[in-house]
């Protein structure tokens, strides 16, 4: 029995939401309808992040990482951030998306260690003002406030010893409200 799904795709930098009708014909073979077009797709995973995808005869070796419903897809050197939602998730997203505006969670933009802390919880900050300094590969990177506001929480400690203040990419660093 063929598995079918209807998805809604949003690509960062593209306004239009795309509707994707997906049918699994057999393991690794799919039919996709987008807009007026139908595509025959042969999809194989090669290793951790590389996929071999043949769409109507065109062969692509793409690099794809998944974070929840978001996918970073690299095709021929071009980078795309794609979000794939089903109807249910789309509805939930619409209901909640307007509430988190004021509170900004700052995440580590790269792995490194927190070398210096410039603000404390309670401090006022302007948009663009540095809150701490993250060092990666001998380079200092200012972690800036995304908005005017107050630093309400800081989740990390600074230290000149990298082992005491290492952060991974995406680690929560601070909250500005």
């Amino acid at each position, binding site marked *: 029995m063929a598995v079918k799904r209807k998805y809604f795709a949003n690509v960062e930098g593209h306004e239009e939401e795309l509707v994707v009708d997906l049918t699994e014909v057999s393991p690794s073979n799919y039919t996709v309808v987008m807009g007026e077009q139908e595509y025959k797709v042969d999809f194989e995973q090669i290793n951790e992040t590389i996929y071999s995808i043949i769409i109507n005869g065109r062969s692509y070796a793409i690099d794809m990482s998944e974070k929840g419903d978001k*996918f970073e897809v690299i095709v021929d050197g071009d980078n795309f951030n794609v979000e794939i939602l089903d109807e249910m998730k789309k509805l939930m997203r619409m209901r909640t998306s307007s509430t988190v505006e004021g509170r900004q969670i700052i995440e580590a933009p790269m792995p490194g*260690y927190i070398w210096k802390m410039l603000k404390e919880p309670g401090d006022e900050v302007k948009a663009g003002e540095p809150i701490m300094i993250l060092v990666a590969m*001998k*380079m200092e990177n200012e972690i800036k406030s995304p908005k005017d506001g107050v630093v309400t929480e800081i989740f990390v400690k600074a230290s000149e010893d990298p082992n005491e203040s290492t952060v991974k990419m995406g680690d929560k660093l601070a909250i500005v409200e």
Partner: protein
Amino acid sequence: MPEIKKVLVANRGEIAIRVFRTCRKMGIKTVAIYTHADRKAPHVRYADEAYCITDSPADTSYLKQDRIIDIAKKTGAAIHPGYGFYAENAGFRRACDDAGVIFIGPSAEHIDMMGSKTGARAVMAEAGVPTVPGTKNPIRDIEEARKIAREIGYPIMLKAVYGGGGKGMRLVHKEEDFESSFRTASSEALNAFGNGDVYMEKFIIEPHHVEVQVIGDMHGNAIHLFDRECSIQRRHQKVIEEAPSPFISEETRQKMCSVAAEAVKKIGYFSAGTLEFIVGADQNFYFLEMNTRLQVEHPVTELITGIDIVREMIFVAEGKPLNYAQEDVQRNGHAIECRIYAEDPANNFAPSPGLLTVYQTPEGPNVRVESGAYQGYEIPLYYDPMIAKVCANSKTRQGAIENMKRILSEYMVAGIKTSIPFHLSVLKNETFLSGVYDTGFIDNKFDMEEMKRRENEDVTVPVIAAAIKQLLSEKISAARAVTRPEVGDSNWKRFGRSVNFAKTLG
């Protein structure tokens, strides 16, 4: 000098491996040093012996002079410094001499001599190498200064002696502007630095960074291995180099290379070294500084001459004469090197360390890869972000560029960002393709935005890929849910529990 039977490389990453490669080929045993952070770095496995030089993971520094020399002594190894760290460190070289350890590099005197830029220029000027015309003495007499400026030739640059940050600087294009420019520069300098002294130097229009590879032995022989063009720089760091320079004329090349070899012979320099020149749009060249070490970009020279520079350095350190006379050194074709950094070019070249989930280096013809990484390797935070050098060669420059495009297209790296997309953009740039580009290339001729722009705006392929991946992930979660023991639980309860679990972990 005794024969070298073992070599310790006082370095890490690709350059340690590159030196080990020549040793392995020559039947010389190898010794690696490493920090706790570098335990899994590939150079540790490549060597026959490996010693940790740090006491704890908190210490990530390779600057452990006494320990390194001690290991070399105990293992009976000569030391090759690679580049960076202890390369060009006269103190380290002296300590090796004192400990009776062979140092594969130039003498302490020559390292010292070239360590100071002004000293180096004086020595080289003496040895007959042209330097940038000008005078370091403050201008006192305007008439006298005007005369010197006329000799140097316009445009000239006026600079505050105690200056910096662009203050007290004036570019003077013609003699009639000299006096007024001098006055404004001097007064600006006085206001800014409390001293109005100003000196002058020839201003090089569209400067090119071209360097000459040299090597000498302890018997008074010295040769050049032709030139390299290194004008593609970002934040004063070279990113693409080629040999030979596509810009300089055959006449300039002949003059520059022979003047360099002559000077090196004159000062009695031995081992490998590089004379850096600034070359103007008018093909006039001026000595800038000399690097008394193996350069990152030496492979392009090896590709066009067929000479293994590390092998020659080892012979020279053993006291043997060079294996080549100048007339044995033939140029053959063209070579280009791209430095691959763990950086995100689309995000202002921010460092991008991390785990290499996929790492496949390019294969096929006309490729040379020197890399310090492997699939499954976690690139440490503490060191230089260069993970590999990729070289392409061909009979012609155009062929080398075509090969390089093919080669970079095969380089598969996942888990981190690399500078590969940046290189691919440069390789398509018209100014680069013309071969006439200066050190202002990235600022003036290269469109960073262009690089970020996509080759293809069509989102069909990424959307299809992501949608299918989403479907597969859903199927996997569904399968997992079915096999769980808590199938009876409501989704809400389960959700609550996993949130609690996450909190206890945090």
